[in-house]
């Protein structure tokens, strides 16, 4: 994995299973968060070439998102928004990739300081590409024209998947509203 050299999703790769109902909800929710929210942050980074202050905060928000995804994949309830950045910087990531807080800070170009806008974004793109490549399956891209169809097909598949796993598909409803 580029700058960090650690493979993403180590426990899933290694075949550690979790009770079906919660695993289905966790993986689909994480796919959604990456598809919709993480992609929006990456687009903000791309468009904000002349707005380093905006990109700095977007990087912090991306780390918050990764901490949220990490907690869900660990089978934990993600803590409130207030805590996500602290968890990312203090604990690093475990499920998304084995990255210590310091390693994550380095990868995200935050080594000079939390609000220091002189760091570069290259590491963030490498991290994102590695996560996207390693995610099981093609994460839809709602920011492109074809993406709307991909998103709807994913939601349909997940509805059936939830039924198959014996879980209530009600958790998908907010995604439908966002879609």
């Amino acid at each position: 994995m580029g700058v960090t050299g650690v493979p993403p999703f180590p426990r899933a790769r290694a075949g550690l299973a979790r009770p079906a109902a919660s695993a289905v909800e966790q993986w689909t929710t994480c796919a959604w968060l990456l598809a919709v929210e993480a992609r929006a942050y990456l687009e903000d980074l791309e468009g904000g070439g002349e707005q380093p202050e905006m990109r700095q905060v977007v990087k912090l928000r991306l780390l918050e998102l990764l901490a949220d995804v990490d907690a869900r994949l660990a089978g934990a309830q993600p803590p409130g928004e207030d805590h996500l950045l602290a968890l990312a910087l203090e604990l690093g990531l475990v499920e998304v990739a084995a990255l210590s807080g310091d390693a994550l800070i380095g990868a995200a170009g935050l080594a000079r300081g939390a609000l220091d806008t002189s760091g570069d974004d290259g590491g963030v793109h490498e991290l994102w590409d590695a996560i996207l490549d390693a995610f099981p399956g093609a994460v839809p891209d709602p920011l492109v024209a074809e993406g709307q169809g991909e998103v709807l097909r994913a939601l349909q598949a997940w509805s059936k998947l939830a039924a198959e796993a014996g879980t209530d598909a009600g958790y998908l409803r907010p995604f439908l509203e966002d879609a």
Partner: protein
Amino acid sequence: MTSGTAPPPSLETFLGADPDAFVASRRRSAEAFLATRGLGLADVARIAAGGAPGSPVVLLTSSPVHGLANRLSDIDTICVAAEDDDGVAGMATQLFSGDNHLETIVFTTAAVDEDLRELGRLATAPPAQAAAGHGAWNRRRRIRVKYLERIVNGLATDGSMPYAEHLPALGAVWRAASLGRALRCGALAVIAERAGERRGRVAYAANAALFAMDAVLSHRGDVFSNRKWYLLRWERLLASGAAGDEVDAVETLRAALYGPIGTQPELAGPLAAALGTVAGRLGAPGVRVAVRHAEGVRRAPLLPGAEMLLAPAGGAVPTTASGEAVAPTALRDLAALEPERAAVVLRAARAGAVEVDPWA
């Protein structure tokens, strides 16, 4: 803590500028942005109105009207229609015209007016209530809070800002919401520092600084919801020559955060000083925070020396001591927590068993 019940200032006082000049400047920002897409305000009116019933007022909203849009920014519009016979209100839709696409959402005049009245009521409430109202808004009201902010800040396609008179009320409520968030993050930073989280405390403190920036900006006429813009808007405020104790206080806090994450010396003092000044200048003096059990939290023994805390949302986490709740305390005094107790409080907060109340 009770203050902040005075009505919001006049629009001119709030903006610190002549309202007509302010609107004209927004129009210029919007038109400059639209020109990069080969569009004018009239085109936006035509395209957006195509997706709405009747002859709606079409508002251009979000980063383009704030002069923050970049080459990838969306063209976000809101249509305010007299009626909604087709039942399209509240659902965002994408509209395409040539190479351009814009997003629009329809609300009725009646719904907008009703929510603006509620905004006006909240704006005269004490900060704790205004912040709580903002936090609960999306559960209780029809128009989501981010859209309400966009409507008030929106530029109509005729170049006017039909809802500008509500900016002072918007500012008062957004100020309270961001101040509350800054104080919560500040308290968590102090607790995390005592618990030994050298990097975690910086995370909380950085967010405390960002929310403090937005609170001051909202107080000074610049109201815009998304955290990603806070630092850039703050730099813009500084570049405009803004001065004052609260501006200096935020800059002092920023300075305390310089350098590699985790290497900072004690942050509790700078946080308490900066947030105390900001809160005092923004109508909420005498800041105290408390840590309270979430409603419905339970505990049961696990082993000698440990219990399981059973949080209301269904999660559970082991804890090795009681004392995860903290009585109302000044931020500075929160720094006197024993490290082991601070760790217990932090763990319980992350597990949802306790909540930080910044308005105690």
